[in-house]
């Protein structure tokens, strides 16, 4: 050490943060959401007519993948708990939301068809259904989070994997969809339990509400939460659990609470995305969606993007959504390519494309030194808040 014991100079105390009025606080809190919603609305209005239905569909898929991958990243990347059951939360949310919109529409409007236009009554029912899907998934996330208190690494992965597979099998045993009000009113317990969500053939006939606006509105919601979490005390606590549970405890981190919280937040957004997925046109929510293969897709996105890098995972989600479309002719090799990609990443860049950094943290190596010096606060100066 070059210093002479502790510095003895009196500390120049940092200036307190700028006081904002009530309006300022609200603006500060809500502007990213406002920007996101505006962008989502603009995409909804402009994109379908300019790029056509095929590409619109890919943009929608990318948005859903972003929600799923970034939320999984809160558990796998930030908190370091390896979950292989993320698709189970997607399915749980999707089926819950589907039941609400389908049977809700039947009861409200005597028909499961779409009601109203953009931001019409049907879409609000749909948004509500997605939120409820998220909430049901959150409860499941709590239950699945509990084993993480005792299990680590591979063992936890197996438990979460098992959760997905169990849910898949349960969904296969459900009753056929009841598609008219009369049948619904005359249905006995045998038709209503297990829930009439289609069994092995999938939940057919859902109104197809999912559009660019809702996908990117919820994606905005997800991203704001992820970024704010990452840079907060809670986020630091999550990362400390990933880095060294033992040391985290000694620093006063309630490891049990943090792990379960991470699982619940991630499950909420997976459930939300499940609602979007279930109502996407051209798709039928089926028990397979709860299974291992789909979970692996999202794990791959987080591994590719980097543990804890939100923008890196976003990018990976987009790449891994677009790539299979571009390589449609080689569809049967998809799993082989994914497995090779995973092995390649583990060998060459185990921390993911961006590690824990964000995309905009990246600088060419020859510039990084100067840049670091610049961004450093002067001694005793005010840390940039």
């Amino acid at each position, binding site marked *: *050490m*070059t*210093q*002479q*014991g*502790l*510095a003895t100079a009196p*500390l120049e*105390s*940092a200036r*307190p*943060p700028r006081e*904002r009025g009530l309006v300022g*606080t609200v603006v*500060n*809190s809500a502007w990213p959401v406002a920007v996101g919603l505006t962008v989502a609305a603009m995409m909804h209005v402009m994109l379908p007519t300019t790029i056509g239905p095929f590409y619109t569909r890919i943009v929608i898929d990318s948005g859903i993948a972003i929600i799923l991958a970034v939320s999984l990243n809160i558990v796998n990347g930030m908190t370091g708990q390896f979950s292989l059951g993320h698709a189970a939360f997607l399915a749980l949310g999707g089926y819950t939301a589907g039941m609400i919109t389908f049977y809700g529409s039947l009861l409200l409007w005597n028909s499961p068809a779409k009601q109203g236009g953009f931001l019409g009554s049907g879409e609000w029912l749909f948004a509500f259904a997605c939120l409820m899907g998220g909430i049901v998934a959150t409860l499941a996330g709590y239950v699945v989070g509990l084993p993480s208190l005792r299990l680590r690494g591979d063992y936890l992965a197996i438990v979460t994997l098992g959760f997905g597979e169990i849910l898949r099998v349960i969904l296969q045993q459900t009753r056929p969809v009841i598609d008219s009000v009369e049948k619904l009113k005359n249905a006995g317990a045998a038709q209503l339990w297990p829930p009439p969500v289609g069994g092995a053939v999938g939940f057919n006939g859902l109104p197809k509400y999912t559009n660019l606006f809702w996908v990117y509105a919820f994606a905005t919601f997800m991203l*704001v*939460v992820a970024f*704010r*979490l990452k840079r*907060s*005390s*809670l986020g*630091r*606590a999550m*990362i*400390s659990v*990933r*880095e*060294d549970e*033992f*040391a*985290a*405890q*000694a*620093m*006063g*981190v*309630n*490891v049990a609470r943090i792990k379960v*919280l991470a699982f619940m*937040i991630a499950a909420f957004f997976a459930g939300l995305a499940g609602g979007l997925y279930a109502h996407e046109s051209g798709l039928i929510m089926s028990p397979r969606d709860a299974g291992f293969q789909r979970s692996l897709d999202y794990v791959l996105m987080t591994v590719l993007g980097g*543990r*804890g890098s939100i923008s890196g995972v976003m990018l990976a989600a987009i790449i891994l959504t677009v790539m299979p479309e571009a390589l449609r002719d080689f569809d049967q090799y998809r799993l082989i390519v994914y497995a090779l990609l995973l092995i390649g990443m583990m060998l060459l860049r185990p921390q993911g494309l961006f590690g*824990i950094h964000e995309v905009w943290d990246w600088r060419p190596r020859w510039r990084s030194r100067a840049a*670091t010096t610049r*961004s*450093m*606060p002067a*001694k*005793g100066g005010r*840390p940039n*808040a």
Partner: protein
Amino acid sequence: MHNSQPPAPSPQPPAASSLLAVENIGISFGGLKAVEGFSVRLPAGGLYGLIGPNGAGKTTVFNLLTGVYPATTGRISLDTQNLNGLKPHEVAAAGIARTFQNIRLFPGLNVLDNVQLAGQLRAREGLASTLLRTRRYAHEESEIRRKAFELLDLFGLQARAEEPADSLSYGYQRYLEIVRALAAEPKVLLLDEPAAGLNSQEKIELAKSIRQIRDRFGVAILLIEHDMGLVMEICEQITVLDHGVIIAHGSPPEIQNDPKVIAAYLGSDVGAV
């Protein structure tokens, strides 16, 4: 390892006002009594040492004090609070912070965040205000940040705040661990071999720093150390542990001349199994 007779009552200084009172704690792993009948009374602002040969159970004592292992016997209290049965994070919240023998920083967090982590101990704002960025939350976070910078500045680490914790030199990493522990605003600081791996010049500075930490933060310090020079120089009272039991307790000169201590360190028929 040792015979199972109850350990002789260890000499204790009259405890007028002790901050950390540890009475007769012990733990066995299976049939092995790792620590037995350990007692110490650490006054506020005290600087005590815990020494003993390798495997004597020193780190186990730290693990007992911090709730990593539940003590099977005895009683631990801090101020008036009973710490028995508390989990490690609750012990930390009660006011005991520690460092580790083998450095355990969070390499994925930068230097500043390693220190800022402690802020969550006193943080009152929960998930909702974090996500909404309420004014109180913003204030709390900037307060955590300010305190962390203050501490880093004190230890000459401010310029490296944005660097990954594992990019620091070994000596700085040791300091950062102490800073991180201090950020938790503890009443008692447990240092587990803070001088391990430091050269003699660095040890001299460490000795100075430890005293200054005690004076400036008013924290009571209990330290495990193998470097006898350092221990004898800065500790007011020293407890010597061998095979899980206290074999001596006293001021540095007393310890240096204690035949049992000499036997434990140099080996003789008296102390050997």
